[in-house]
């Protein structure tokens, strides 16, 4: 399959610095949007963006185009870094913080009617109970933790965990078939 981002990452793996510049120009808006959505803090997102591209250069040799698309690999690095940072933050106890964690509505997800992968994920999400599908999307797109979800749904953390794990396994079944 045509994957121009993967081609550039492979050039980076070959220590091509010009390709690295091109990769930044072509993909930084998507990765910055990802970091900004999860971290919700512009200066921290800028800091994280530098970190992400540093990792990308250092790990480019481990990218395997046979295992997935270039953009998927880049976003996984950005999401992981953003979630690491989010979890390392001191716990927020004020009401404001809870409000912030609970506020992002699945505005963007409604546009998930694109082709291919997105369509299949979307179809399979439709097989889940709506609140569980929302929880999975909230975790993926906004970096909500089990603790955030427990607060949001006002149920014990272990309850959330039990039903979300079941939903994830069901999602996997649906996506495999």
């Amino acid at each position: 399959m045509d994957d121009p981002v993967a081609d550039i990452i492979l050039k980076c793996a070959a220590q091509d610095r010009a390709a690295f510049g091109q990769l930044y120009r072509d993909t930084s808006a998507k990765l910055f949007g990802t970091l900004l959505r999860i971290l919700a803090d512009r200066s921290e997102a800028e800091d994280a963006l530098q970190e992400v591209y540093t990792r990308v250069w250092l790990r480019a040799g481990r990218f395997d185009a046979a295992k997935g698309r270039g953009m998927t690999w880049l976003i996984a690095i950005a999401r992981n870094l953003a979630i690491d940072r989010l979890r390392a933050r001191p716990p927020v106890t004020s009401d404001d913080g809870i409000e912030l964690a609970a506020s992002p509505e699945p505005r963007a997800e409604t546009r998930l009617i694109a082709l291919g992968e997105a369509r299949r994920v979307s179809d399979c999400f439709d097989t889940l109970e709506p609140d569980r599908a929302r929880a999975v999307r909230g975790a993926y797109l906004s970096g909500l933790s089990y603790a955030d979800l427990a607060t949001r749904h006002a149920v014990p953390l272990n309850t959330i965990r039990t039903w979300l794990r079941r939903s994830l396994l069901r999602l996997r079944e649906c996506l495999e078939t």
Partner: protein
Amino acid sequence: MTDTPLTPREEDEAQAAEYVLGLPDLAERMALEARIKADPCFAALVTAWETRLAGLNDGFDPVPAPDLLPQIEARLFPAAPRPARRSLFWLLAPLAAALVLAAVFFVTPREAVLVATLQTEDAALTYEARYQDDTLTITRVAGTAAAAGQVHELWIIAPDAAPVSLGLLADAPLSVAYRVPPKGWTLAVSLEPAGGSPTGQPTGPVILAAQIGA
């Protein structure tokens, strides 16, 4: 809904999915990251979930990013060899590379390697810098964070080069993607206003410094 316990295979699948979604707290997340590094089967489950959920990536709206490429390149490629030394450098580079490879091959540290200890004379404030898997981790092992309104900022300084910021030191260890810091380079901590140096160079007093390999 059934409440039968998960099978070991389901348990692994659930943990991989939870990791990719980012649901666990910090302690559990760190444990899962350690498992990803140590267990290729589990790492493959994680990769499969990343691919499986990639369709959700459409939900991330692009936002034009500032041009941070110069800072990123300064971190990755600091202090290019100066022209006068270049011929010698290129002559020796293959040999050096071979030695490094040999060293990596034979040492292959499983534990993070201590590369520098930065401390005050009385050791009241101490940071340790460790390196593993392209990651430099700086942990405060004694003392306290900077007073309110200030922050400790970490710098790496190549010989004859300007300091390059590696980030701000808070209570949690700071992990930055980095190559093996070369011998003779310096790690330093300066006291900066909250949010870090506004200029990109140290503005406050340098309170700690240590040369790598000293």
